[in-house]
């Protein structure tokens, strides 16, 4: 389930020179507008031919300019969700959705029609044609069309950009399931760090046609400064939690990790289930002594392992809470006021309502 | 001012040569517009700037004369022609044209190429001749009517049709066909090319050209092309 990409290509004045490999899971391509994200997945998808380079999945070579290999798009079994939906205007929504299905042997099908339709909330549109659908409706159908074709590699180009938060919140878990259960590698282009943080197992950061950072999501998200511009605001840490129980009294889900006990919004799990949470660095409040009478339910004792200055007025504080590694972002002013130093014992405090499972 | 002549297209070779010798001898020229007689007649009716009209048959001349568009004084029967039965040059068909001759048998399942038998003069003459000879009914179903007599000739020359009826003038000039026989002159209306000045024409040289057409130089050229010269001094 791996993907290896190495590409060089010139597009007018724009030069693309990219190499990364992904061990499977969901690889996010992240970078500012015009950095080459769409071009890269066009080449993975077989819509563009790189001037030189090689792309392979699980040893299957899709392109290799050295041996003049070029597998045409329709033999790649990719599901491509385009930045513009590109629905077939002459077909009904239903026909659009099932278009790719016939090319997949029954045994290899995994994108169930009814389930996908229900999830995307497009059941009432099945007999319409795309022209007069709203922007978000089109995009949902484009997602469905790619998934129902049960591809072996999924390419998604900002699939959620035109969806409202509620709809996003419904679809994101679906993409997670796809990543985890169907074991289909996904290459996911997004501007949204929140999405990337939640979904990505690996992140490739592009900048003006080059890879400026690449690696497991955990590392990239923690190395916040690597993310360009305002995206840094969204960085944080990802932790693995064990489900303990649904607390009858508070109505909250209780989890455990080396750091201690976690309170999260309610969710259906069985004891022992493991989930990940993403804790935004800017959501962590630090305190130098135990606090009382505060509304926040998640308080962990830890030790400062590093102080990393970031923008002019801010600083990143790496914490080790009994083995769980967290990063907090606070003002330098606060850090000075609190007299933080490496090795100092502190409390990390997070509000329950700011936490979400992923 | 050159004289404007409207002439049947089949006269092109002869008239171009005569025009050249006229201009060499007299220093005057004619501009000649060649087309089908029907088109030319209708154009004269609609006010075309023609000074002289030379038709391939009498009907269209009569059409204009009824409408007082030609100077009937000047009208004359200029040329005559014959119709012949032709076969491809490499064919061995032997047939003598006589009343009741076995044209149908000679055709076999082939076609008899003719110009349009209702509309085009050569076709009409041919049909009349076959009727006179009493063989029309036996071949009526086998006739392939071409747009004009040249096209009919072409069908025979290419071997598409084993036999065809065309003008003598066309047949003698075409190496790919052989004349099988000539139709008796009394088997159809006389084949006549009439000429006349138009009433609308103002060019005084037109009469001179018409005269020249009947002169000795013109006669030689017409006869070289295979026409019979009917009018002359």
């Amino acid at each position, binding site marked *: 389930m791996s993907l290896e990409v190495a590409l060089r290509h010139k597009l007018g004045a724009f030069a693309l020179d990219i190499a990364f490999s992904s061990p499977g899971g969901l690889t996010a391509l992240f970078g500012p507008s015009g950095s080459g994200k769409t071009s890269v997945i066009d080449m993975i998808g077989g819509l563009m031919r790189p001037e030189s380079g090689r792309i392979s999945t699980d040893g299957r070579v899709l392109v290799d300019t050295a041996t003049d290999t070029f597998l045409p798009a329709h033999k790649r079994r990719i*599901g491509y969700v385009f930045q513009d939906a590109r629905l077939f205007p002459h077909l009904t929504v239903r026909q659009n959705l099932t278009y790719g299905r016939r090319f997949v042997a029954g045994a290899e099908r995994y994108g169930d029609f009814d389930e996908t339709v229900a999830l995307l909330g497009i059941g009432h549109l099945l007999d319409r044609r795309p022209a007069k659908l709203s922007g978000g409706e089109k995009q949902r159908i484009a997602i469905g069309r790619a998934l129902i074709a049960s591809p072996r590699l999924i390419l998604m180009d900002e699939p959620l950009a035109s969806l409202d938060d509620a709809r996003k919140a419904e679809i994101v878990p679906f993409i997670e399931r796809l990543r985890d259960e169907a074991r289909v590698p996904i290459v996911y282009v997004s501007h949204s760090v929140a999405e990337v943080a939640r979904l990505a197992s690996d992140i490739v950061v592009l900048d003006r046609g080059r890879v400026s950072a690449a690696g497991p999501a955990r590392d990239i998200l923690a190395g916040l400064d690597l993310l360009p511009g305002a995206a840094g605001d969204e960085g944080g840490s990802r932790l693995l939690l064990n489900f303990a129980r649904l607390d009858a009294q508070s109505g909250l889900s209780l989890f455990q990790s080396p750091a201690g006990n976690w309170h999260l919004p309610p969710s259906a799990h069985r004891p022992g289930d493991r989930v990940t949470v993403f804790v935004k660095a800017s959501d962590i409040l630090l305190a130098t002594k135990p606090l009382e009478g505060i509304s926040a339910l998640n308080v962990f004792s830890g030790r400062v392992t590093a102080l990393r200055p970031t923008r002019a007025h801010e600083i990143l504080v790496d914490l080790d809470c009994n083995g769980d590694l967290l990063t907090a972002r606070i003002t330098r002013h606060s850090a000075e006021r609190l007299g933080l130093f490496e090795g100092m014992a502190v409390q990390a405090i997070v509000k329950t309502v700011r936490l979400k499972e992923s | 001012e050159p004289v404007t002549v409207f002439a049947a297209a089949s006269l092109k070779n002869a008239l171009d040569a005569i025009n050249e010798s006229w201009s060499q001898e007299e220093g005057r020229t004619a501009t000649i517009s060649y087309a089908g007689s029907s088109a030319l007649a209708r154009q004269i009716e609609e006010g075309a700037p023609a000074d002289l009209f030379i038709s391939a048959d009498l009907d269209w001349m009569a059409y204009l004369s009824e409408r007082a568009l030609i100077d009937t004084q000047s009208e004359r029967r200029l040329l005559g022609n014959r119709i012949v039965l032709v076969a491809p040059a490499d064919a061995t068909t032997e047939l003598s044209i006589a009343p009741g001759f076995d044209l149908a048998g000679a055709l076999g399942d082939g076609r008899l190429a003719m110009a349009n038998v209702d509309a085009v003069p050569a076709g009409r003459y041919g049909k009349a001749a076959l009727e006179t000879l009493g063989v029309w009914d036996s071949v009526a179903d086998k006739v392939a009517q071409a747009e004009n007599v040249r*096209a009919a000739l072409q069908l025979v020359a290419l071997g598409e049709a084993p036999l065809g009826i065309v003008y003598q003038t066309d047949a003698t000039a075409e190496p790919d066909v052989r004349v099988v026989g000539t139709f008796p002159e009394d088997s159809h209306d006389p084949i006549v090319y009439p000429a006349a000045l138009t009433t609308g024409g103002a060019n005084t040289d037109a009469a001179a050209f018409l005269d020249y057409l009947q002169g000795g130089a013109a006669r030689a050229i017409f006869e070289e092309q295979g026409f019979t010269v009917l009018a002359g001094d």
Partner: protein
Amino acid sequence: MEWLQLSPDEWTAVRLSIWVASWATAASLPFGILVAYALARWSFPGKAFLNGLVHLPLILPPVVTGYLLLLAFGRRGPLGQFFETVFGLVFSFRWTGAALAGAVMAFPLMVRAIRLSIEAVDPRLEQAAGTLGAPPAFIFATVTLPLALPGIIAGTILAFAKAMGEFGATITFVSNIPGQTQTLPSAIYTFTQVPGGDAGAMRLTLIAVAVAMAALVASEILARRVLRRMEGA
């Protein structure tokens, strides 16, 4: 309205014209689509030549086209002999020949219209179909073709109308045999060539116009329906 009544021969010509034009259109449509697609989407050596060849019948005088057809597809022509021995298909003096002439003459119009509408199909939709696993032929049939449908309909009907009106090449190639190759335009032409034939020509012209108009209107309605379907609901 009595003068509108048709003689049996004329009825035959009307039926034959429709028959011939329909075949000409239907049989050339697949080739038309293929050639249009090749011109629109491929680049290959000789593309300019192919494009020129397709347009040739538009440029040549129809009589020349007819003559070339005669040379190639006539009884003694190389292609004519090929089709006769291989497929048992004879063109000369048959309605099949009339259909061939109509098809050749209408081909440039058909190809142009189809080509324009194939060029207007967004290639990114074809790409999208490719990523869904569809092989090129399937993409062509399910994406390109349906999206180009309005142009294909337009091209087909244009070709039909042209084939209905075709005359010069047809009469040169297969002549004018009532019941077999005498199409409506040939019949009209015959009328125009004789004095007093105007009424007859007018009558047949009206019929030709009526048939072609009906086809045009039908195509408009069809194309609009196709378009409306694509625009949504």
